[in-house]
């Protein structure tokens, strides 16, 4: 079955450093992959989408890579700030069927320490 894995352990980094979060998927080939941010008790907020034919996508301090050979996406936050502390969710799309039915990772909790 299709499976998504994100770093299960919380990531703690120092302010100003680059945070790197990993999303690995198995048993399928997504057409695209999305990253969301979720704060405690709130709904997820869309950050970035990267398609299978794109190697890298950037938005301000955020960068996403998509390696279809490794079946992995990396999410980077450069010059991290305490306000970046949140849980980050990876959501690849299935290729077959309705590709709006995303498959969600459990998320990685990021804490940026001042």
């Amino acid at each position, binding site marked *: 079955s299709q499976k998504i894995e994100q770093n299960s352990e919380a990531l703690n980094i120092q302010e100003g450093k680059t945070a790197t979060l990993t999303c690995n998927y198995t048993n399928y080939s997504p057409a*695209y992959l*999305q990253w969301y941010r979720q704060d405690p008790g*709130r*709904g*997820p907020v869309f950050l970035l989408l990267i398609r299978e034919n794109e190697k890298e996508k950037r938005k301000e301090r955020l960068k996403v890579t998509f390696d279809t050979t490794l079946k992995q996406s990396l999410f980077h936050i450069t010059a991290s700030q305490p306000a970046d502390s949140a849980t980050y969710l990876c959501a690849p*799309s299935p290729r077959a069927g309705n590709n709006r*039915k995303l498959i*969600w*990772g459990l998320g990685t909790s990021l804490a940026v320490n001042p």
Partner: protein
Amino acid sequence: DVKVTQSSRYLVKRTGEKVFLECVQDMDHENMFWYRQDPGLGLRLIYFSYDVKMKEKGDIPEGYSVSREKKERFSLILESASTNQTSMYLCASTPSGRNEQFFGPGTRLTVL
């Protein structure tokens, strides 16, 4: 900005009660979704709708039904609430031709 609103932030119900959770979006999106989110299980799709009066089962539809009589409103119904339906319920919408989902603030439902 897209706005997705949900009828309640917190809700407490008794076992066996019929529960209605409502979601409204103001951007004319065709697709709407209901998820529940539980620790260690992540976001799981209950139902989604791609048009008025159209619905499709997600991964965990048992014990739930939905209604979409108007484009902007998507309701989730728990016909007879049970304690294992205690959860955070999240509604989302997506316009046709786009893939990013816009989420509401969530409803934390407790069934006693």
